[in-house]
């Protein structure tokens, strides 16, 4: 098994650094993630691939500590550093962490509020009250999420009236309104049709100038299209991590080759 810990980039430009991480949903039972080490470079798109149940979502949710919601879960070994800070250190405020590490979910989940309120939400909970600041942030975020032209005349309409693809782009706008450094995306297109998917992929390419993006996907072409690096996971372990072109053109591990060529998974 070839565990690569480097992608050819310098360790310096990595924004996320995972070292020998093990994680369990129920301490005392088996580890869902085992000995994962991985450095994710800043300003790039990194994709996680692997068969269902191998722990991609779990790892992603470790990065913004969403797993805190599962009471019995624990990091059983290793550490995660983001921007050079151990995110599980006792003096880390998870709220501050999440402001820097945004997340997009598999099923688009806008709040049952207006479009405007959805985008403004992150700023409102930070205590921003001034309407001019909010207005500006909402417009800017919607423009970046390529949604502004479609919704600018009905910002007060309910978010639930939008189409699925629009709702997912609204969720992107909502996430970038907070100006995170990193955006985690867990299969963001799996509930969308090919055209909506294409638009999101386009968006991801545009966003990578401003954000570091980590994306989980089951769609090999998508991983190949959008990402700079790809990590392949199998049964809770990192099998191979390299430039996307390498992974898809010249995989080192047999399992990777089998998986991307569709022989299992």
């Amino acid at each position: 098994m070839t565990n690569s810990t480097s992608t050819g980039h310098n360790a310096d430009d990595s924004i996320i650094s995972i070292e020998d991480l093990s994680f369990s949903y129920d301490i005392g039972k088996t580890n869902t993630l085992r000995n994962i080490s991985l450095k994710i470079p800043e300003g790039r798109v990194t994709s996680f691939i692997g068969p269902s149940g191998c722990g991609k979502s779990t790892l992603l949710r470790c990065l913004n500590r969403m797993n805190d919601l599962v009471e019995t879960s624990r990091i059983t070994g290793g550490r995660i550093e983001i921007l050079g800070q151990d995110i599980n250190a006792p003096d880390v405020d998870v709220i501050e962490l999440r402001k820097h590490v945004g997340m997009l979910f598999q099923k688009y989940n806008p709040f049952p509020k207006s479009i405007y309120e959805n985008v403004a939400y992150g700023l409102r909970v930070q205590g921003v009250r001034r309407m001019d600041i909010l207005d500006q942030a909402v417009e800017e975020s919607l423009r970046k999420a390529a949604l502004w032209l479609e919704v600018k005349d009905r910002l007060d309409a309910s978010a639930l009236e939008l189409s699925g693809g629009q709702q997912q782009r609204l969720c992107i706008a909502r996430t970038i309104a907070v100006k995170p450094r990193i955006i985690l995306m867990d299969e963001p297109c799996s509930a969308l049709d090919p055209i909506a998917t294409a638009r999101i992929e386009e968006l991801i390419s545009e966003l990578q100038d401003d954000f570091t993006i980590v994306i989980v996907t089951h769609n090999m072409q998508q991983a190949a299209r959008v990402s700079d690096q790809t990590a392949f996971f199998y049964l809770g372990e990192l099998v191979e991590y390299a430039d996307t072109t390498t992974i898809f053109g010249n995989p080192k591990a047999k399992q990777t080759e089998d998986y991307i060529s569709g022989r299992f998974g």
Partner: protein
Amino acid sequence: MANKFQSKERRLFGVGIQGWIKGFFSGNAGVSMGVIFLIFLFLVFEAVRFFPDHHRELKLVRRTGQEYVDFLRREARGYQEISSYTNQAYFQELDARFGVQRGLVDGFEVLQGMIEDGAEPEIEALAEARDVSDPVALRAAEKRYWGRVGEIVDSAERSSVDSFGRLSTEESAWQSLLQAARRYDAVEEETPDLILAAEARTESGMAEFRKAKTMISSAGSDLKNLRDRLVRIASATRKDAETDYSLGMRKKALLEGSGKLDGKAREEQIAEAEALKVLDQFPFEVRVQPIIDSHDEHQKAVEHLKEQLKKGIAALPTEFSSEASKKLVMKIREAEPAYLEALDQSLEEASEWTWNEEVNWSSSVSRFFLGKEWKTASGGWRQLYGFLPLFTGSVTISMIALCFALPFSIGAAIYVNQLSSRWERSFMKPAIEMIQAIPSIVLGFFGIMVLGNMLVEYSDSPWVSWLPGFPITQRLNMLNAGMLLALMAIPTIFTLCEDALNNVPRSFSEASLALGASRFQTVQRVVVPAAISGILAAVLLGLGRIIGETMVVLLVAGNRIAMPDWGDGLGIITQPSHTMTGIIAQEMGEVSEGTLHYRALFLIGLVLFVVSLLINLSAQKLTKRLGAHV
């Protein structure tokens, strides 16, 4: 040609097994719906007949003149209130200004009694000795008498009986009273100078006030006498009219029944019917005449009352030693103009009153729904079925209960569902839901024996005595009942509320948390708004439970049928009250079927049913809205 797809199912009476199973379940559903419908029909059928009966009753009240007499009764009632305030004010003031003197007079009376009882043989002996004038025997008798008196007074001094309470802080007055008692000669029965002086001082000091008091208390005597006379006349008329009516009914029944009999039996029954003396038309006109004729007298009595009352109130003092007395007199002065105006108005209505005017159908309805008094036939004078105080009581108690239940149940639901750890959740939820297992009779018992006493005992501590209606004087009141009902509503609201919160998709709160919102912000800005219709539905169903609850309010609410005294503002919550459910439970057992009273109770039952129905329907509507949006 045989059907290829013919059913292979076995059939019974031409119906397949599937059909039977379906029939069984739909039958069950049908029966429950049918029962609800039947109950509703029964309620409506019994209840709406209240209105014609009520109309007949109102007509009778008018024909007999009872309605007129009620003017006088109302006039006298207001007057009696003022008069009783005056009395209270007088005695408060008396206590404050001449407490010591009163203590001396009362205390002496008690001591005097003790001496007369305790030294009876000695007194007799002394009286006899004085009569025979034998110096030796006299000296012996006197010695024994004074010795005995000394003992009695000593023991009184030691025990310092309650009756001397007024003097408990007045040591010197107390001593001089004892001194006077020691010298009291029970044969001569001469009141000591000390007591006479005290009486004289009180007398002269309070003379003015007493004069005013007497003026006020005698102001209404003419009116009261007239009222009593008219009450007797109208009551007699009413009794005769009712007897005549029921005889008439019986005669009619006998005559109708005789049609089914033959020969001798028939003749006998007809004869029996004929023997019943029924008036063709009850002579209301004649019987009501004395009441109509009394109008002049009535007018004079009221004029007299007004004049005397004005004078009396004007003569009340303006300076007081007692704060309580001052407040009472102020209350009297404030109430005076309104009362005088009410008198004028009542008199005017009385002069427009006619015994044979038709009774409006609408008043049969409005006097029930807007009536403020509830008096059943057993109460004597006349029956009154005013629904308003019962409704007000039920609503007030429910509101109190909601005020207590809402923060607890919704707060607990939010905590358990959103903020608690799994371990806390595992015992909190069952524990709160367990409250439901307490039988309501046990809660009622607790309310009477524990909560009621606690409220009375602790409500005058300085922490809480500033609250409206505090300190509480009555153990059984709306606050007490409301608090217990809140306890009963908490599990209902909690459970439904928790369900509503649970139905909010996890993805909402995850999205919020991922955007850097705190747990609390997430609850407040996302989860609760998303669950709000479910929460409102939970509150409504809790309200439904509270309104329909009977046992607790019957035991604990105090069962006083009267409109709350709005003058207390929010303090009305510590007043006792009766309720819609309580009155049915209390009185249904003793009414005879078909009476007006019986129908009035059914009508209340119908109102309750409709109210609960509306509450449940709106809760269902709200729940549907929640379902649609998730």
